[in-house]
């Protein structure tokens, strides 16, 4: 362990941290500090989660009755479209990378900031600009194409604000691209001395893999929605068969991005879980290199499977076979991760605090969500279940059950670092339990519905499906309450929570070796890393970098 010579006035310096070293709206809106930008993202992403959640609750309410009495068909169609768009593009994709990633990457690798701080702030503004376009589309009447924007419905037949929503997604795409670029460059060039690739926390590896997808996938979506907007506006183009185009080409391009995008959503979550599992059980990750490289493998192979969304679309059956085969191939690295996480717990010292609960829930739900991915990757079964609630259940298991759990778990785990306050443990446990129960009650019945043949995007349905729909709606209300509780107590804790020590978990990792909340420059001096990832040590040895002893805490 490196023990640095103490700076003379460290107590003074640590007392100013990134939160209190300057005040005022301007100091936030013009900040270039990655930690503050992360908080800007946290606020905006949470807003969109609530918005998408409200849409979800309205969807579920409407489906209480077979006749769908609450909303007209058109309004229902707009609801699920806007729910999908908001949740995917404005909550889940930026979620973990732009909030936790932004906050943690520089600290975890021992840098002062991301490589391009101004670009980082610009990404947030671009995100907001895209969001404004989308909000405009929502407020002025909505969009009804489904989040998939399939042509020729979107180019020619829909009478809603497709162009505005498309522009919103086009613009937000650049925010993703710039964030990914920033992460890649940062991880390559800004690592502290001694922080070799294999000493990086696995969260960094997973974000590196995510950034690869941002970089290579997002431009494809951007230009595709741009072409769609042109086609819609000028009635000339390449997707509408009436103009000589092929609608299936749109599907290829859309999924070329959007399948990898589902790994954008899950990889950061897997990174978070690796951190939680290791730190909450004080064990190094079993098979570090396998977990690290499986992230990269998922990112790379994830680009080869997009056609599995198109098995019955009129795509060639042979192409369907290739895509099915590769979908199975990409499932293997995920399996490797699951087994390694499980093995990590063996002979650990497992804490029962909230982040660990989320981690366990994550793995269990990922089993179901991921394995049902294998159902739909099986050509013969997908023919039956595609475009039914089976798919809806599959992707909510992986997106809500997995990524949302990881996000919440991560938020709890790093909350003391981010805010300098502890959250109330009891409430957190209660909320985690409610969310888990509500979640399963919401989405498990949907698997059954789907196999029974209930198609998705249906505003009304044959009465025999009602029982399962009512169960699902009941679950959604529980889930809704469940996710509101953390929102309340986390906000409460910012003011009234107990003051957090620098390392409340006894965790390894550079972010725990600076004060909570960290100073503007993250560390009082550039760390020199001499230890491996997840090298746990008794508390006394895990010191703040640039300080002499642990008792001498700041704050």
């Amino acid at each position: 362990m490196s023990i640095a010579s103490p700076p003379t006035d460290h107590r003074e310096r640590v007392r100013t941290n990134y939160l209190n070293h300057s005040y005022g709206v301007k100091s936030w809106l013009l900040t270039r500090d990655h930690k503050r930008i992360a908080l800007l993202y946290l606020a905006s992403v949470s807003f969109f989660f609530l918005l998408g959640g409200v849409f979800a609750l309205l969807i579920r309410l409407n489906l209480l009755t077979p006749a769908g009495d609450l909303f007209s068909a058109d309004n229902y169609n707009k609801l699920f479209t806007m729910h999908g768009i908001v949740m995917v593009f404005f909550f889940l994709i930026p979620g973990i990378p732009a909030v936790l990633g932004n906050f943690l990457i520089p600290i975890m690798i021992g840098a002062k900031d991301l490589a391009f701080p101004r670009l980082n702030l610009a990404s947030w503004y671009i995100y907001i600009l895209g969001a404004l376009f989308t909000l405009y589309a929502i407020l002025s009447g909505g969009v009804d194409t489904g989040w998939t924007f399939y042509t020729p419905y979107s180019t020619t037949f829909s009478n809603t604000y497709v162009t505005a929503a498309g522009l919103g997604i086009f613009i937000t795409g650049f925010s993703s691209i710039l964030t990914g670029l920033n992460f890649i460059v940062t991880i390559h060039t800004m690592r502290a001395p001694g922080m070799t690739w294999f000493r990086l926390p696995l969260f960094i590896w997973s974000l590196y893999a995510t950034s690869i997808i941002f970089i290579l996938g997002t431009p494809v979506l951007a230009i595709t929605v741009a072409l769609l907007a042109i086609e819609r506006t000028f009635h000339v183009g390449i997707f509408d068969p009436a103009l000589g185009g092929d609608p299936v080409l749109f599907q290829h391009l859309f999924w070329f991005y959007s399948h990898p995008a589902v790994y954008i959503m899950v990889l950061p979550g897997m990174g978070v879980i690796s951190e939680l599992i290791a730190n909450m059980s004080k064990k190094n990750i079993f098979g570090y290199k396998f977990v690290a490289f499986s992230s990269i493998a998922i990112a790379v192979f994830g680009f080869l499977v997009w056609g599995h969304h198109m098995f019955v679309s009129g795509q060639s059956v042979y192409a369907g076979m290739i895509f099915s085969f590769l979908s199975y191939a990409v499932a293997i690295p995920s399996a490797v991760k699951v087994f390694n996480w499980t093995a990590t717990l063996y002979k650990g010292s497992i804490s029962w605090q909230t982040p660990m609960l989320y981690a366990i829930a994550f793995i269990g739900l990922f089993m179901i969500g991921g394995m049902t991915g294998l159902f739909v990757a099986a050509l013969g079964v997908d023919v039956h279940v595609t475009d039914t609630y089976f798919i809806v259940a599959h992707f909510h298991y992986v997106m809500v059950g997995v990524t949302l759990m990881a996000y919440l778990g991560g938020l709890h785990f790093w909350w003391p670092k981010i805010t300098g306050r502890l959250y109330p443990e009891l409430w957190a446990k209660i909320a985690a339990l409610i969310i888990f129960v509500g979640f399963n009650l919401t989405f498990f019945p949907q698997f059954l519905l789907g196999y029974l043949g209930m198609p998705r995007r249906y505003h009304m349905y044959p009465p025999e499906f009602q029982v399962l729909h009512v169960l699902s709606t009941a679950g959604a209300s529980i889930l809704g309450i469940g996710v509101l509780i953390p929102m309340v107590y986390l906000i409460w804790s910012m003011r009234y929570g107990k003051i957090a020590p620098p390392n409340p978990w006894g965790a390894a990792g550079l972010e725990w070796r600076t004060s909570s909340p960290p100073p503007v420059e993250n560390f009082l001096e550039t760390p020199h890393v001499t230890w491996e990832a997840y090298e746990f040590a008794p508390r006394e040895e895990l010191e703040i970098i640039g300080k002499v002893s642990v008792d001498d805490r700041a704050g």
Partner: protein
Amino acid sequence: MSEHIVSRKIYFSVFGALLCLTALTTFIAFQDLGPFNIVVALAIALVKASLVVLFFMHVKYSSRLTKLIIFAGVFWFFIMVSFTFADYYTRGWITHPHP
């Protein structure tokens, strides 16, 4: 890792080559090579692009990482093209195998 300064001579020769190749590709376009017109046109374009990338953009003297990044970009483009074309060119096969 200090940077490599490319000499002006190299720049001018690359420049000359690029102009010649442009003339050549235009000239060849007016000759009948059957199916090879497009092949030759793309081959020349590829050579020109490589010249620009290697010398004007200094990739010949750059780190492995830079080369890897470029390779990734081009490779992913080919993934997109080949898998999409794989669909289009096998669509009718299930009932009447391709001649």
